[in-house]
């Protein structure tokens, strides 16, 4: 089961607008790669941890989960850097990536999807001149976030069903035998979802939804 991305709260980090947080995240990335000194990198990593665990009050487990996802990559980077350049560059490289991963996790965990989607809609607003409806762009992003875990669940179910009947659970064969039924299921799901969107008035999205905000 996929864990929740957003952790509700009212801290300063939570209250900071999504656009500002994303800009700060981009700025952090630039600084980390332009000034890759141990002091700057470790200082910024510490700052991210203070903001995430202290100010925002996020659970340690949530940040550890994000680190686990990239753990193999971090070990690989450390190993290569250690043998090529020595221990300090290896630590700096890993700390730099870690700071970015954790900062992104803090932004995700303190920003509701609706705020992210609203930001995307604001950024896309000029595209209205070319006939694009920003609300629909936002809907596409929201739906992608909504359906990713569902697709993962369906894939797991297919794998379990195949394993229960003695099918392959690992390797290329397992992938190929999962993909076809998964695609069929997703096409059926897409049809019903399109009906649900119709039934819930998605075709009525106002041209200028700002009026309704």
């Amino acid at each position, binding site marked *: 089961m996929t864990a929740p*991305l957003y952790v509700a709260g009212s801290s300063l980090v939570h209250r900071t607008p999504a656009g500002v947080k994303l800009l700060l995240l981009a700025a952090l990335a630039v600084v980390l790669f332009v000034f890759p000194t141990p002091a700057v990198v470790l200082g910024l990593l510490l700052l991210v941890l203070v903001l995430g665990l202290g100010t925002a009050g996020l659970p340690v487990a949530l940040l550890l989960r994000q680190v686990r996802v990239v753990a193999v990559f971090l070990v690989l980077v450390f190993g290569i850097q250690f043998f090529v350049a020595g221990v300090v560059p290896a630590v700096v490289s890993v700390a730099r990536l870690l700071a970015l991963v954790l900062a992104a996790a803090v932004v995700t965990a303190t920003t509701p999807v*609706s705020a992210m989607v609203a930001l995307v809609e604001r950024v896309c607003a000029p595209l209205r001149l070319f006939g694009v409806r920003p609300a629909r762009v936002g809907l596409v992003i929201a739906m992608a976030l909504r359906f990713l875990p*569902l697709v993962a669940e369906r894939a797991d179910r297919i794998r379990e069903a195949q394993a229960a009947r003695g099918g392959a659970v690992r390797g290329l064969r397992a992938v190929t035998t999962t993909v076809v039924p998964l695609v069929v299921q997703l096409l059926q799901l897409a049809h*019903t979802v*399109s009906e649900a969107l119709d*039934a819930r*008035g998605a075709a009525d999205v106002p041209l200028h939804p700002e009026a*309704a905000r």
Partner: protein
Amino acid sequence: MRFRRDPSSPSAVADPARGIELLGVRHAYGERAVLDGLDLRLTEHRVGVIGANGSGKSTLARLLNGLVVPTEGRVLVDGLDTRSAVREVRRRVGFVFQDPDAQIVHPTVAEDVAFGLENQGVPAAERAVRVAEVLERYGLAGHADHPAHLLSGGQKQLLAIAGVLVMRPARIVFDEPTTLLDLVNARRVARVIEELPQAVVVVTHDLDLLESFDRVLVVDAGRVVEDGPAEQSVRAYRKLMADR
């Protein structure tokens, strides 16, 4: 998603007393007719639809709010034709699907409930109040910011119902709302349906659900073969199935 133009201004001619009318309806997918010879007027508060798999029940449900338009004949909701006034019809007739996972389109609970209101252009302040009200009513207030995919099956179905009810439709069509639920959650959803002030049409295999219904239609091979009070129709349906 089909974005259809709906140039009519149907509100002026709507007549809620007319209920839902199916006039000479036939529907076919390609050569295969799934419904034929339907002439019905649904004005009762609670109408049930039962029938074997593939009998045409779900297509019948989809006709009632314009998700499907008939190949022949007309479907009128409060006098509005589902072919020409589809937007207005859908505002009047909510639709709850069998699989809530297909109906929940936003990542979190509150956002999903708000979706229909956003589409209707309801202002943010009113939206927040209405979403909070409906979540409270269905015991989902504590889950407002939770990811929808982490809810239990029963909670997902309640969320799907909440997402429709928040739009305040005059009628709601349910397509097998309890099929994927365990007994406890099925009873819970049945109670919710029973307490709704709106007129409902429920397509179901759950015959217990229909006990208190005003009218039940039995659909078989695309035709309504029994139409009457719940007890009479359920008896006829049991006999029909037993004879096979």
